[in-house]
């Protein structure tokens, strides 16, 4: 047996204290295989050891929550016996090293998390962060990530219906690729991962096991340095064709009642799937690795247990149902092997070539895994009103903002994703939320991913709140009732007290908003150590939200639809310029406090707007977010080239009014008679409301004076991305 030296322990990413704990739990020195298993199961990626204590504070319950955090994905009740199953997960580190495969396998992994629970994936979303456009790697990374997401999702035949993209220098050495999958299942056909009972066959299905991705979970739990690209062999390679077969075969098997438990092999592969299934079922698992389908010769037990080869699943079947299951997997030309059995020992036993390579208590990998209350240093949020040059012409600034990297159209990206396959996409990318019909019904799910990282560094708590509030607002703006979220918490190194503070405050902010908005967290993922050479990313707690619409024909979109509609803003505009797009793009500064979210007003305003849409009274609605009110109006004018004439009499200061990023606001447009009623109702309900003007023409006109053609705005808005990617534009540094 290999002597475990301090260097070996260190190479496995384990601290000395953690190794001592392993010695205690085992009562002896672990074998190399056991050490490898500990290293991945206790990695930050699998164990959530730095965040678990804080994640417990999040609200996870509501009458419509069927399954909260802890399973492969969360599940909510969407009526009529239907369930929506969804989760978001990061694939940041692999995507930086090898963008195409990193992003592709991120998509594949999150789809498996959803279909392993019995759902057919119906929509994909993503949240992407890249370095500044002028950074030499950015173009390459954008190109690789987008084609990787498309390459996998398009082949799977699941529409990629939206997402968000930011560019910022803090991501120069550490991009973020967060993928979200939403699936549909019947409530009586949801599969969990608890391997209950002894003597049941453990079956392996899908692709063969190779040497790819060994220690991926450990890599994802460390900071990057200049040598990171040498880690390319730990990035897995995706095979969407096999995943498509696996999806169909699993759903076919799930239509029978042969399955006791099923779990995909994601991070830490065979190790985490077997340990987690045994742990949740309170059983033991004995594996015979000689039976594992192998792609390469002479693989060791260590390699097989730590391989992260893609497109594999582990299932526990009812005894005697093996042949039936095997026939289904053979039909789909996939490997199928009985590789073990459940036991009543609560131990994970791994045999290979007649030798017991590992024999360890399963609870040592789960409950006994370390949990850290890492120290954190609070810092006061940034505050203060930044100065600005009041003389800058408003419409010139609008043009600049609409063609800024963070604001320009993302059409270049989403036209590379098949967003209409499955013939249920009712709202395509470019609006406030994607809307996907529940097949064969009038119901639809609205889906969005949101976070504003530039608010999260100056004020991690308000930034966390705002991410949730914006997600809730985006769902509301299409007319959906927001139901639940999945969170994807991307932060730097939690061992640095100032970063740990960002994490703790961010989670508190998310929790506060989710509680106030009745919008529970039903699953998520943490990605820490997003640093390169000691530089942390902006805190980026991405929120994936899902809402339900009862009648898809009443959906609202952002586009102005008729001439003569009255344009109304709901919510109070105070002119908050701190950390705004305006300040960054026009004044060149990232200063001031992040805007505060008043959760009470947020709910009140949103509920008011949603009722109007649900009643069929309003079909045109857009939330006001990045860039402020005037940007929102331009975004409503551009889709159909319908302009508007807007203005407010006696404005003390035009710039903060038009570009401030105050929260809790919506712009709606409705015909005159309806608009008058809406304004009266809002006033009666003590909701701040203002009439801004009327739609019509092909220009956006301010105060009956200055105007700009909508076509000209659109030309700038649409051209930045393609120009940047084709190298025709000199990148703008943000």
């Amino acid at each position, binding site marked *: 047996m290999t002597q475990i030296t301090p260097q070996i322990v260190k190479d496995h990413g384990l601290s000395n204290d953690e190794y001592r704990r392993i010695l205690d739990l085992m009562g002896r020195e672990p074998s190399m295989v056991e050490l490898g298993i500990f290293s991945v199961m206790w990695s930050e990626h699998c164990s959530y050891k730095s965040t678990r204590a804080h994640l417990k504070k999040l609200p996870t319950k509501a009458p419509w929550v069927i399954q909260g955090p802890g399973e492969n994905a969360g599940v909510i009740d969407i009526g009529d016996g239907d369930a929506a199953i969804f989760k978001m997960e990061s694939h940041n580190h692999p995507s930086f090293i090898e963008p195409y495969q990193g992003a592709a396998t991120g998509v594949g992994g999150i789809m498996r998390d959803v279909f392993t629970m019995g759902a057919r994936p119906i929509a994909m979303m993503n949240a992407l962060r890249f370095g500044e456009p002028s950074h030499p790697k950015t173009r390459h990374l954008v190109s690789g990530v987008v*084609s990787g997401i*498309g*390459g996998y999702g*398009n*082949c*799977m*035949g699941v529409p990629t219906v939206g997402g968000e993209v930011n560019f910022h220098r803090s991501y120069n050495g550490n991009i973020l690729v967060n993928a979200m999958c939403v699936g549909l299942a019947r409530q009586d056909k949801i599969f969990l991962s608890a391997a209950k009972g002894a003597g049941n066959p453990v079956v392996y299905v899908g692709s063969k096991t190779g040497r790819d991705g060994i220690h991926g979970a450990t890599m994802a739990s460390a900071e990057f340095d200049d040598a990171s690209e040498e880690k390319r062999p730990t990035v897995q390679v995706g*095979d*969407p*064709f*096999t995943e*498509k*077969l696996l999806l*169909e075969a699993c759903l076919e098997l799930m239509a029978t009642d042969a399955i006791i438990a099923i779990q995909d092999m994601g991070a830490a592969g065979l190790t985490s799937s077997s340990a987690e299934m045994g742990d949740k079922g309170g059983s033991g698992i004995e594996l015979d690795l000689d039976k594992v389908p192998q792609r390469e010769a002479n693989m060791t037990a260590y390699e097989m247990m730590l391989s992260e080869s893609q497109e594999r699943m582990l299932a526990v079947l009812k005894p005697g149902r093996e042949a039936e299951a095997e026939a289904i997997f053979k039909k*789909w*030309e996939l490997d199928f092997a009985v590789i073990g059995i459940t036991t009543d020992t609560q131990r994970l036993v791994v045999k290979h070539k007649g030798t017991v390579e590992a024999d360890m208590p399963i609870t040592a990998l789960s409950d006994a895994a370390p949990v850290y209350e890492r120290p954190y240093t609070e810092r006061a949020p940034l505050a203060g009103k930044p100065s600005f040059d009041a003389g800058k012409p408003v419409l010139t600034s609008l043009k600049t903002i609409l063609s800024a990297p963070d604001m320009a159209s993302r059409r270049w990206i*989403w*036209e*590379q*994703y*098949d*967003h*209409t*396959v*499955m*013939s*249920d*996409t*009712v709202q*395509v990318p470019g609006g406030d939320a994607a809307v996907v*019909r529940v097949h064969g019904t009038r119901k639809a799910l609205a889906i969005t991913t949101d976070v504003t990282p530039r608010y999260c560094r100056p004020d991690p708590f308000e930034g966390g709140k705002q991410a949730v509030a914006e997600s809730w607002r985006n769902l509301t703006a299409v007319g959906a009732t927001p139901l639940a979220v999945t969170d994807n918490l991307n932060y730097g190194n939690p061992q640095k007290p100032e970063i740990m503070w960002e994490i703790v405050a961010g989670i508190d902010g998310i929790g506060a908003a989710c509680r106030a908005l009745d919008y529970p967290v039903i699953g998520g993922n943490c990605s820490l150590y997003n640093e390169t050479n000691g530089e942390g990313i902006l805190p980026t707690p991405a929120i994936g939200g899902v809402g339900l619409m009862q009648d*898809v*024909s009443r959906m609202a979109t952002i586009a102005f639809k008729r001439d003569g509609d009255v344009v109304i803003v709901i919510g109070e505009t105070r002119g908050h310029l701190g950390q705004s797009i305006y300040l960054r793009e026009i004044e060149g500064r990232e200063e001031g406090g992040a805007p505060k979210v008043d959760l009470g007003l947020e709910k009140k305003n949103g509920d008011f707007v949603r009722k109007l849409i649900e009643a069929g009274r309003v079909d045109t609605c857009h939330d006001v977010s990045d860039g402020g009110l005037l940007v929102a109006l331009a975004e409503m004018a551009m889709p159909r080239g319908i302009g508007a004439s807007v203005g407010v009499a006696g404005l003390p200061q035009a710039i903060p009014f038009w570009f401030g990023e105050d929260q809790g606001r919506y712009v709606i447009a409705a015909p005159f008679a309806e608009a008058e009623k809406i304004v009266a109702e809002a006033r009666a309900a003590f909701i701040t409301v203002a009439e801004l003007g009327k739609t019509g023409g092909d220009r956006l006109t301010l105060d009956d004076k200055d105007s700009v053609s909508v076509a000209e705005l659109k030309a700038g808005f649409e051209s930045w991305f393609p120009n940047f990617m084709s190298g025709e534009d000199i990148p703008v540094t943000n």
Partner: protein
Amino acid sequence: MKSAVIVFPASNCDRDAKVALEQMTGQTPHMVWHQDSELPDVDLVVLPGGFSYGDYLRCGAMASQSKVMREVKAHADKGGAVLGICNGFQVLTESHLLPGALMRNAGLKFVCKPVALTVEETQSAFTRKYDQGQTVTFPVAHGEGNYFADDETLNRLEGEGRVLFRYQGDVNGSARNIAGILSDKRNVLGMMPHPERVVDDVLGGTDGRALFQGLIETLS
């Protein structure tokens, strides 16, 4: 009209085709698995979009060798109608049921968007319900839709009225902006745009309906 949809392991528009056919004909099509060596007695066979066998090789190349394609060829040889959409078009050219080839998009990127098409020819079961020269909008969603054939073939296709749909602009680099072509016996149509995705109002268009209505009128 009785119809069948061929299902390869990585077909992914098979359900879309099925739903569109159900909606338009009121009958459920037969779903025929790629390893089946018999086709049911049908008027129309649809080869749906997707990635057939993963298409890591040339798109549609492996599918053209499949058991079920022998049956589809026999059906076409007897004059039966075949509609190949997207990957189905690729399978049809690889199977030599249609001339030419579909190469990687000229822009080297997958492209998914609604595109305007001109109906170039109404003398076919597929287009008889459209007006000559009519503009219709169908979505495309493909990485390899760049139609290529030599000039002689292209001239023949044009001369014989076998170019049914033409893009109104460059979408993927296709020769003469060709989006859909007919076989010499006028019973096999291959097209990259997706008519089955535009039969439902809620999804933003119904321009695809007339294609199915033409088939129903001709074949029922």
